[in-house]
């Protein structure tokens, strides 16, 4: 059985004025243990709604989401689901609640009922994994945005999840902070954690092993990034290839040996050096 199984998932928001928004229209997909998936799509296509279904913050209107066999619609399974899926959102300021870093990280496991004597070790481990142990006694509001986002990730890790779901977690960060967070997430993925990351940054999406695309609440494509970025419908989904991929495509007629899927400056430069000299 897959780790996450999403079957015919529908979500409809009810508006106070009587209207409705059918935000997810029969989504089907699965996530295996340890996958690294980017979720792409236009503004309003349903990405955040889908992310909120992954750990039961939202409940299916129709269809089913199971996490490691536990249905998110089963009230008795909420804990099991929440401890398996760690969520990280766009703005770290909205996520960090405590006045000291280590208290913030302890918040989740405490709520899950982790015993007092184990709590310290859990917090230490989580902070170590994101490189923030030395900052444990600082108030979160004095950290840089990249550091805050690391603390938010530590908060999720303290629940010992099998999967991290990130919703535009780097969109408010400066370039160094964004790189830092991508690096941490990829290190966690290397240790076997599944990662589902919602992003509008195509070059970040290009780093994933698999990309799923939402359009108008439907899942319209599912495949490796290089395939997605060459898809004829890409523009219709409001997406674009990463800029480096655009440049590589323009250069390819002159350098037919340039490989597909080049998405960052270093990779393009080193391929050009190899191809240009042959």
């Amino acid at each position: 059985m897959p780790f996450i199984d999403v079957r015919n998932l529908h979500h409809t928001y009810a508006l106070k004025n009587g209207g409705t928004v059918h935000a997810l229209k029969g989504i089907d997909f699965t996530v295996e243990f340890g996958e690294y998936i980017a979720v792409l799509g236009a503004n309003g296509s349903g990405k955040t709604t889908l992310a909120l279904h992954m750990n039961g913050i939202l409940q299916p209107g129709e269809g089913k989401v199971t996490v490691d066999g536990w249905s998110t619609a089963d009230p008795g399974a909420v804990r099991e689901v929440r401890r398996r899926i760690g969520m990280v959102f766009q703005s770290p300021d909205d996520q960090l609640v405590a006045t000291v870093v280590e208290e913030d990280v302890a918040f989740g496991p405490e709520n899950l009922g982790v015993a007092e004597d184990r709590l310290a070790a859990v917090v230490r481990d989580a902070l170590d994994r994101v490189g923030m142990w030395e900052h444990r006694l600082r108030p979160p509001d004095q950290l840089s945005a990249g550091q805050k986002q690391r603390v938010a990730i530590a908060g999720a890790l303290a629940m010992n999840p099998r999967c991290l779901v990130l919703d535009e977690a780097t969109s408010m960060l400066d370039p160094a902070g964004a790189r830092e967070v991508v690096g941490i997430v990829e290190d966690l993925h290397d240790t076997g954690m599944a990662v589902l990351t919602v992003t509008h940054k195509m070059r970040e999406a290009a780093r994933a092993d698999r990309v799923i695309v939402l359009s108008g609440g439907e899942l319209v494509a599912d495949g490796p990034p290089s395939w997605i970025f060459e898809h004829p419908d890409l523009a219709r989904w409001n997406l674009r290839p990463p800029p480096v991929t655009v440049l590589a495509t323009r250069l390819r007629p002159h350098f037919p040996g340039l490989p597909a899927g080049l998405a960052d400056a270093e990779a393009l430069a080193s391929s050009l050096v190899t191809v240009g000299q042959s």
Partner: protein
Amino acid sequence: MNDPIVEIRNLGHVYMAGTPFARKSLDAVSLAVAEGEFIALIGPTGSGKSTILQHINGIYTPQTGSVRVLGRDLGEPGTDLTLLRREVGLVLQNPEQQVFERYVGDDVSFGPRMSGMSGKELTGRVRWAMDQVGLDFKTYKDRPTFALSGGERRKVGLAGVVALKPRILLLDEPTAGLDPAAHEELLECLARLRLQGTTMIMATHSMDDVAALAERVVVLDKGRAMLDGPVREIFSRADEIRSLGLELPVATAVVHELFGRGIGIRRDVLTLTEAEDAILVALGVRI
């Protein structure tokens, strides 16, 4: 520069001054902006970009130093800020703080309504502003604002400010959270507004947006203006830019990477087309 439209002199700012939480956020910043200029403010997180923008439309009054905008001294008590803000629009970094009416249409029309516009003219203006930022008028005008996705909310915030047709447009991370097509459309919209003479100051973490739009770049670090110059010159200082935790525009980065690998190539490029030309020349395809 004759008659700057914005003139900041030695501006200093301390948040929560006089409390144990006091935090210096601007330290003797000076900046003069000519009418019609497009200036990018870049700098690591916490460097003071948002604080500067919020001084230019009078959200903060100068604690030390001075801010003059459109000939008004914003340190002077009695400056009419309502009047100022009709000409100086600020799109906040966090659209949650910008969008406050119950329905999208009301939110976008708020500014023009307050300045006395009504009827057909008002509807036309709202439709125009929503169109500029890529929000379909019919689909969104009656949508409750709480029921918006992140990117939709940012577009509503933008449209509400654009609807005022301000002379000075202050933009705080305007493209964060926009999908790639909306991102592209917004850059086109800003380029159009610039052609129409709007003065723009944009704080951003996207160096590609800076390369696409700005003529001049001010680099902030820890509340100080460290560099101020033409965009091409600023991004030629790759080491300084990187040591501040910033990065080069992607086109510039590619040629720098090639140079670092021993390829003799011109590095003063900003756009993908310029990078393409430089690469074809450097690798002997074109002379």
